[in-house]
């Protein structure tokens, strides 16, 4: 049987969430919730006589992304008209970039599940305008042009992706970077970030590129992974059964968990690109590019490396923390508030994520939970100083997560402080041993493991607040004392 490998290039359309649209002053709004056709003007409606004006903020956002993706920024870029008819395209052409894109020849390092990394080449990133939206109701099509003219950055990779896992890793990393750069919310379900893998497969070792299909309408990263895996398998089966893959645009059917053909591409469409005569060439002075580069925020990889060297975190923990900008910021705020970084990382990755999972909350919402970074830092510090033990801390976490509050005050109000008074603990130990002569006998006969059981009984008697180390020492001392009797 032939072994196959996938060859995937990813096309991503990221809305640039600027204050206004690409070529007019209408606001960029959430087009899934805004009342239709309320954020429009003669320019984005494609009225006769109107002219586009380049949104400088969109150019800057595009440059941020280009620089973050290690791209070269050419001396100039140029807008071009891409012509086709469709009711969601008011002018009958989309203003895009064709021959001279904003950014070229970059790369993005992705993190794979086995802990390795890989560089995916970025072919180009170019600016364009979004189209409107059609809604089909009762045999009619309704046009909403709120989204028409919203700035888009199209980011195209080289065909460097060779599995569904790599496609997913690329999607995750790119989305994280867009969010770090504060140019895109990453909300794929709202269509502000659209990922379209172009997929073909070939026998391992072959260098030819076979017919590819393009998968659209993927509304989450998980679906990107699932649809890619599905389509790779499907194509392999087609070849295995002696068939040929047809060039097509596919969609993902969430109910059937399978790809469906949206349209077959019989011949390449001719968009009749030509330079947009209404707009000048875009020339960004080098010093401005360098200023944008200098102002870029710390990106996930750099942040991960710093977490490892500055805080001694493991590569895994650091990578998990930086994967979501909000989580990284939460962690940093907690460290800033004075907690031990490793302990904070443990609590976030363990307890906090578990609580959020239980509520089906996305990790990016961590900034909104009731447990504040300061409270987490205080909690960690209370454990470290021996004011409370780990068991109490975990229970307290649950309360703080659900209701919020100040850990030190809760400890005081609820009397949760650890008991380290030796006479109190010794009395409890003696009481337990007196009540468990059988267990004591087994210990004395050499069964060391009963210590753990007895330890549990003592802690229970102390309502969990006993200093565990001290209880352990006292237990051993008392048990040994009974050996001589």
């Amino acid at each position, binding site marked *: 049987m032939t072994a196959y490998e996938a060859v995937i290039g990813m096309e991503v359309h990221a809305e640039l969430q600027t204050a206004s649209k690409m070529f007019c002053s209408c606001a960029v709004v959430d087009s899934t919730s805004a009342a239709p056709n309320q954020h429009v003007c003669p320019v984005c*409606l494609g009225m006769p*006589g109107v*002219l586009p004006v380049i949104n400088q903020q969109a150019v800057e956002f595009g440059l941020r992304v280009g620089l973050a993706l290690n791209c070269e920024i050419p001396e100039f870029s140029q807008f071009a008209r891409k012509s086709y008819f469709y009711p969601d395209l008011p002018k*009958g052409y989309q203003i895009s970039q064709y021959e001279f894109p904003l950014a070229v020849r970059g790369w993005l390092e992705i993190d794979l599940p086995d802990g390795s990394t890989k560089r995916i080449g970025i072919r180009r990133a170019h600016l364009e305008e979004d189209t409107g939206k059609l809604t089909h109701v009762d045999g009619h099509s309704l046009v909403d042009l709120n989204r028409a003219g919203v700035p888009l950055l199209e980011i195209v990779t080289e065909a460097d992706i060779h599995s569904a896992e790599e496609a997913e890793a690329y999607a995750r990393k790119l989305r994280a970077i867009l969010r770090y750069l504060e140019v895109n919310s990453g909300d794929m379900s709202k269509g502000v970030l659209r990922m379209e893998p172009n997929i073909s497969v070939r026998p391992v070792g072959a260098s030819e590129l076979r017919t590819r299909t393009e998968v659209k309408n993927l509304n989450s990263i998980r679906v990107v992974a699932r649809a890619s895996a599905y389509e790779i398998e499907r194509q392999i089966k087609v070849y295995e059964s002696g068939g040929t893959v047809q060039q097509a645009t596919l969609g993902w059917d969430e109910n059937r968990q399978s790809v469906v053909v949206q349209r077959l591409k019989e011949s390449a469409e001719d968009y009749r690109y*030509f330079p947009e005569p209404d707009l000048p060439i875009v020339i960004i002075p080098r010093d401005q590019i360098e200023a944008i580069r200098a102002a870029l925020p710390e990106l996930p990889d750099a942040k991960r490396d710093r977490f490892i060297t500055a805080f001694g975190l493991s590569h895994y923990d650091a990578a998990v923390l930086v994967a979501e900008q909000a989580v990284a910021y939460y962690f940093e705020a907690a460290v800033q508030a004075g907690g031990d970084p490793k302990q904070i990382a443990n609590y976030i990755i363990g307890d906090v994520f578990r609580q959020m999972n239980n509520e089906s909350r996305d990790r990016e919402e961590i900034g909104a939970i009731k447990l504040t970074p300061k409270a987490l830092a205080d909690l960690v510090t209370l454990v470290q100083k021996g004011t409370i033990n780990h068991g109490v801390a975990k229970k307290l976490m649950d309360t703080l997560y659900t209701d919020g509050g100040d850990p030190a005050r809760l400890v005081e109000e609820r009397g949760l402080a650890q008991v380290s008074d030796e006479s109190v603990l010794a009395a409890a130990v003696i009481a337990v041993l007196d009540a468990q002569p059988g267990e004591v006998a087994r210990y004395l006969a050499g069964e060391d493991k009963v210590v753990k059981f007895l330890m549990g009984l003592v802690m229970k008697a102390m309502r969990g607040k006993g200093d565990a180390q001290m209880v352990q020492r006292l237990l051993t001392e008392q048990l040994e004392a009974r050996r001589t009797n």
Partner: protein
Amino acid sequence: MTTDLTDLTITQARDKLRAGDISAVQLTQAHLDRIHALDPQIRAFLTITDEKALDAAAQADQRRQQGDDAPLLGIPLAIKDVLITKGVPTTCGSHILEGFVPPYTGTAVQKLFDAGAVMLGKTNTDEFAMGSSTENSGYFTTHNPWDLDRVPGGSSGGSAAAVAAGMALGALGTDTGGSVRQPAALCGISAIKPSYGRVSRYGLIAFASSLDQIGTFGRTVEDVALLLGTIAGHDPRDSTSMPLPVPDYSAALTGDIRGLRIGVPKEYFIGGLQPEIERAVRAAIEQMAAGGAEVCEISLPHTEYALPVYYLIAPSEASANLARFDGVRYGPRHSQGEMWPTYKATRGQGFGHEVKRRIMLGTYALSAGYYDAYYLKAQKVRTLIKQDFEQAFEKVDVILSPTTPTTAFKIGEKADDPLQMYLSDVFTLSASLAGIVGAVVPCGYDDDGLPIGLQVIGPAFDEPTVLRAAHAYQQATDWHTRRPPL
């Protein structure tokens, strides 16, 4: 005395308004009366806005009473129907925009309004400014006031005819390959197509975006300069408008052309040029030499390529510019139930023959596999044409030439022969492709009494020199004082 009021120049009318001899309402009413008397024969107007005009005139009078003396306060003008006017139907001479009432006003027209001008109505044009006679208007053909059997030129034929016939003191037109200059010549009035980027195109319904410019018509160069000064300047809404200060064009009209270096391009005096035109233009050149100008022959070697280059670039841009007329958001929709049949019916019935011809030409020239051979090659030759002028303007200040190869032709004479029609713009295309200034002044009449126009071409953004030359010539002649026999 209404006829007197319609025979004024803008500057004369302004003086009378300032002196309180006449009111803006009187002046506007006089023009409306003349429009209603003459336009049934001339057909310069697609829309006459009597009520709005009189309201605007009354407001102008009120402003003047309050001490306002805006440069065009109370001056009645005509506006080509390619220019967007809020609340007033704007059709581009096309059925595809029948009944379209725009929600905004374009920059140049707004500047006229801000300066106090009164709009009398919207003037006829070849559909989407594609033509040289107004015969391509989707509605009707405008008649030349000098001979009603003849065309007024085009595409801004309605504006030129309105000014020539005394139905407006001045007018705005648009010029893509000669659409202001050619009708000015054929109607015996003065006009200017300024440099590309001098006037905002915001609100100009695009035909060919890299060529379109708004131009001004008047009975004198002085009026043309006054109107241009009002509408010129950078507009943040038009990224191709240049952020340059607007000179005082009226102040440039010194009447002095001593030492002015005039170039006469040999390629513009060729076979096919009507003899009376050559004679009139040569006489005009001599007249200017007598006024102290230095005349020399120059060469613009790529002139012969202007026509093919223009008819690749302009239709290419038009094919995209006209894609928005799809019946989805405005204009009539010829619904066929399904999407594609509806597009086809809407555009098939909405556009006229010439527009369709150019959309097809442009679509072809931009198609994959043909782009390099047609559009790209045309752009390269356009650069050569531009360089011809740059080299010429190292030696001369302005270039004088005929505006058209013939005087006004008969209605129907060229209507079925597109190539013959295209050739009537052969002397104006180059300046459009080069993005430079072209002005027109009357310089004589042919044996049938039809007007002849002298073209004054100057470097980009040197409108002052072009206007100075044209004005000085006009000061020394009286061609512009003749009126058509109406």
